[in-house]
């Protein structure tokens, strides 16, 4: 089985790169791992002795989540096609901002989500815009940017699986997820 997973070293190239970029560039992590071999039988052609048709099957490692945050609401919902944080979520922002400022070691991922309609990549960008709005709001309340990362899942990880307007509304959401 030839499914060895190799993360080749490109961080060195990143670090050595010039200053062409107008924004600071973070170094990509370097890992070296061996993948869990996928059961034989999923690679039928290899068993058949394929040459040009060979495809190596690789198992990606699972996501690992660090500890949960304090027991305060950690989701903010948005209207259709909107990135504006409604005033009803001010207490949510205040509570999370207070915790983050009192716990400088804490770090949150602000995970933007969208409803199921439209292009996957465009929804990824929409979710990012929502997450970025929450990040900027927390920043205005005094949270250090280094304690936050705004990311997007777009429509890829829906919490509500139906196709009703209530389901869509549930998925137009930013979750504040504590990572440490």
């Amino acid at each position, binding site marked *: 089985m*030839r499914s*060895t*997973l*190799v*993360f080749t070293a*490109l961080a060195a*190239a*990143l670090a050595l790169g010039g200053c*062409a*970029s107008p*924004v600071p*560039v973070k170094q*990509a*992590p370097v890992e070296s791992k061996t*993948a869990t071999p*996928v059961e034989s*039988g*999923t*690679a*039928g*052609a290899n068993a*058949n*002795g*394929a*040459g*040009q*048709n*060979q*495809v*190596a*099957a*690789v*198992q*990606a490692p*699972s996501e690992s*989540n660090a500890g949960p945050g304090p027991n305060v609401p950690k989701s903010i919902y948005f209207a259709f096609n909107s990135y504006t944080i409604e005033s009803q979520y001010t207490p949510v922002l205040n509570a999370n901002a207070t915790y983050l400022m009192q716990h400088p070691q804490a770090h949150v*991922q602000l*995970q933007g989500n969208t409803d*199921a*309609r*439209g*292009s*996957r*990549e*465009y929804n*990824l*960008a*929409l979710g*990012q*815009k929502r997450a*970025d709005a929450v990040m*900027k709001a927390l920043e205005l309340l005094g949270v250090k940017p280094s304690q936050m*990362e*705004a*990311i*997007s*899942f777009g429509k890829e*990880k829906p919490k509500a*699986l139906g*196709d009703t307007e209530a389901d869509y509304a549930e998925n137009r959401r930013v979750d504040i997820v504590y990572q440490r």
Partner: protein
Amino acid sequence: MQRRRFVLGSLAAPLARGASVLAGVGVLAAPARAQFKVDVSGIGATQIPVGIGVFRDPDNCPQPIAGIVRADLTRSGLFAVSNLGGQTLTEQGPPNYAAWRAQNLEAAAGGSVTPAASGRWLIEFRLWDAVKQADLGGLALTVLPGDLRLAAHKISDYIYQKLTGQRGVFATRIAYISKAGPHNFALNIADSDGANPQYALRSREPLLSPAWSPNGQELAYVSFETGKPVVFVQNVRSGARRMVANFKGSNSAPAFSPDGGTLAVVLTLTGRSQIYLMPSSGGTPRQLMRSYSIDTEPVFSPDGQSLYFVSDRDGGPQIYKVTLDGSGVQRITYTGGYNVSPAVSPDGKTLAYISQQGNSYQLWSINLASNATQLLDDGSDCGHPSFAPNGQIVLYSAGGRGSEVLKTVSIDGRVRSTLSQAGVQVREPSWGPWTPDR
């Protein structure tokens, strides 16, 4: 090539119309995993009547070579395919021109499959022009058992090119994402007919946006395996993979430049989704242009001089073009309030894209010279179009959540096929390039 062809509605039509072909049926080759069910509808404006005889092959040959060739040609919609009445015809002939003309055939092919050294198989085939009574040549291919289907597709490509004048795409491959459960995602590679699907990557977390390198050796894609969108590039043959974009925020929408040296990606280093260019081997990203909007879904023009992309700079998402120095932004789509997911034809003259009309996300194309648009699929939830390397077919996803399938449509909208897998959602297709061995 001047040929007399049967027109739409001729006696040849029933052969193709509504034909349902179960791909990947090999008597001895037990399917390694779920196979695609392929349904074909429609036929080309003209169809070439061609006979593919029964090849002389031993019972233990794992793949029905002539059957795969017939299915390929039928699925294209451009041929009315017969099996010469079930008669065996090898590459040795003899060509029976009189009988073939009596059946109104324009061409006929025969072949054989023979065991060769080291577990390989020798596939020989020859094509004859029944009208001109001429030998159109053939192929002799020695392959491993796992490449028997590829050999059959090469025969189909040979016939397609000789009879239509266009290069075929049967021997190329497609990549796509499958979801078989909430935590069961895979990046897959299959033959262009959906047969022989193989896992390139399996993950518990979502995968999206696969994009082939121009040499067909690598796939770039977005993986959520680390807990957020990160862009990887993976060597298809070895499985070696590298994180090329894992910056703060989200990393997505990879696209290779035509020379393979540059990767366009979307990063969120400034908060907004913006397009960057970076070496495809990894390295420092360079922001292409600064906008105060969402800029995403970049794809290179075939000349490598510009990018098409999606932006909401004028309100809703529309498709734009920009030169590689970040200047000269030009809006391409004006009709409708939501136009996304551009795919460029290999000749650079046409874009396929998704347009929202009411509650439907439809597949459209636009002629970049005349700006004329054409509706290719009015289905409710089309996505992620991709051109075949000969520009004749668009591959895309269709159907809503829970029932996602892959579809193809010829660029004239006449010939359609649906590739579905029971219980598996298939999406985000990307048609691979021609390569020296395909």
